[in-house]
């Protein structure tokens, strides 16, 4: 496409013609007039920013994954499902976008058809890069959400005289003060009381216990439970250590042990 300037004087004689530039836009002169030629001389398939974007998304995703693993908040794996899914999709989709062929070379096509196919492919790659970026963003948000409000496994200590015989006994279960980032509203306490001797007649079905929150402000204050149980305690805004007394009541002749105490902090 060529054009003359709108103010060009048509009475002037054309004495010189030249042009420069080999890109899609070339500028030159025709006599006293400036000419601008706009034409796509390069193959229409080169869109380097798409490839760069795909690699950028993948690099950022991998960088974020490295950071996430290094700063892993812990807690149940199930709460990371969205993080796993979205970051995996981000890696796969950005990889697909980066490697997606810009042009099909398997069969000869005329220029117009080739241009159409190339445009179509450019759209596909653009969508892939955008989707990968969205997945990355979603994965990052999911991780941040778990980090700030997700479930956190905490260490619990068991102290007291064990095994507990038929007269019963009290075993203490304590959670140390969690780090500021791990503070949550509730503590899910899971206890397992087992036979002291696995080869003796089992008493698991006959033992009960009472969990009493020794720390003030924790509700419920007491809870009656069987040998395997999970109880949710509201910590009442408490951020420090929490202690429970577990009164184990075996049946006659039984000898039991509070073998396991697991704690999970959460906001649910």
């Amino acid at each position, binding site marked *: 496409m060529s054009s003359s300037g709108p103010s060009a004087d048509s009475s002037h004689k054309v004495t010189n013609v030249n042009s420069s530039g080999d890109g899609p836009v070339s500028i030159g002169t025709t006599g006293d007039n400036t000419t601008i030629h706009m034409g796509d001389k390069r193959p229409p398939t080169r869109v380097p920013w798409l490839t760069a974007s795909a690699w950028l998304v993948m690099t950022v995703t991998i960088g974020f994954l490295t950071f996430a693993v290094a700063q892993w908040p812990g807690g149940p794996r199930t709460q990371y499902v969205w993080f796993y899914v979205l970051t995996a999709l981000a890696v796969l989709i950005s990889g697909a976008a980066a490697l997606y062929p810009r042009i099909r070379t398997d069969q000869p096509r005329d220029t117009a058809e080739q241009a159409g196919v190339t445009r179509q492919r450019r759209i596909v790659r653009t969508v892939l890069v955008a989707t990968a970026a969205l997945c990355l963003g979603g994965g990052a948000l999911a991780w941040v959400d778990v980090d700030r409000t997700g479930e956190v496994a905490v260490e619990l200590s068991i102290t007291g005289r064990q095994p507990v015989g038929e007269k019963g006994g009290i075993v203490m279960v304590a959670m140390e003060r969690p780090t500021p980032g791990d503070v949550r509203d509730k503590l899910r306490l899971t206890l397992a009381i087992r036979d002291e001797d696995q080869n*003796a*007649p*089992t008493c698991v079905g*006959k033992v009960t216990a009472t969990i009493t929150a020794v720390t003030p402000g924790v509700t419920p204050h007491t809870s009656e439970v069987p040998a395997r149980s999970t109880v949710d305690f509201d910590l009442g805004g408490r951020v420090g250590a929490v202690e429970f007394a577990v009164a184990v009541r075996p049946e006659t002749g039984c000898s039991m042990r509070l073998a396991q105490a697991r704690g999970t902090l959460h906001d649910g």
Partner: protein
Amino acid sequence: MGGARRPLSITHTWVAVAALAGAFLAGCSSKPPSLFDEGKIEVGSKNDQPGTSYSPHAGEYTGFDVTVAREVLGRVGVKSPDFDGVLSKNRARALHEGDVELVAATYSITAQRMKPQSEGGDGIDFVGPYVSTRQGILVRTADAELYRSHDDLNSRLVCVWEGTTSAEELARPAYSKVRTVVMTDAHECVTALLKKKVDAVSTDQLILYGFTEADASLTVPPGLTFGPFNDYGIAMAKGHRDDCRKLQQALMEYVQSNDWDRDFEDNLSRVPKADRNEARPTDDDIESLSCRDSPGIAKVD
């Protein structure tokens, strides 16, 4: 020829594929064969415990274990089970090696026995308890007055036999002053007691009451008990959960019926009434210990 063969070959291929697919699908959906399909079953039982499981003559078995097994199996369609002798220490092995399909032989339900073999357990599924009892002692009637408390057993020689929970209980530190001797089976221990080679025999009270029915010169001092209640179950190797559930259902019906009282009275008439009441399991007991890999838990209101 080649052209004529080709369709045949394709047909064969499809037939083979269909057969493989059918076999695969059948394999996916098939369950292990039921132990009760043939209406016959081999049950391992003791042969030396009068009252619980006893064989007075070759091929003939009596006792509460045997009666319960017959009753429960009868309710799932097995009308004439075959009984075979089994020692305490060989019960799990006999099940896993297929010598017997079930064991009804005063087999105590423990966490270790219930646990799958892949987790280091014995890999046994129990249907039970069908009766519960505590561990006690058997002494000569002439000496019965000497045994009123655990301390009276200090320095005495008490016989227990291999593969029982009784031996484990007396090995606890609380009974460290009691001397124990381990023999092969009940018969050996009772013979040793009668010959005054040992002072007492210790195992579950139901078994001991059975011996007193057979020999009046023997006595179970009441109230002298050890450890927790022993819950007896009918045992099978894991892998037959459907059969296990059927037997569990049948056992629940049986225990709720008067048949249980009748059979208990017929086999163990010398058990005091208070002990008999404690021996009868509830549906909750049966539910919490039957067909499981670990014991169930108590119901808490």
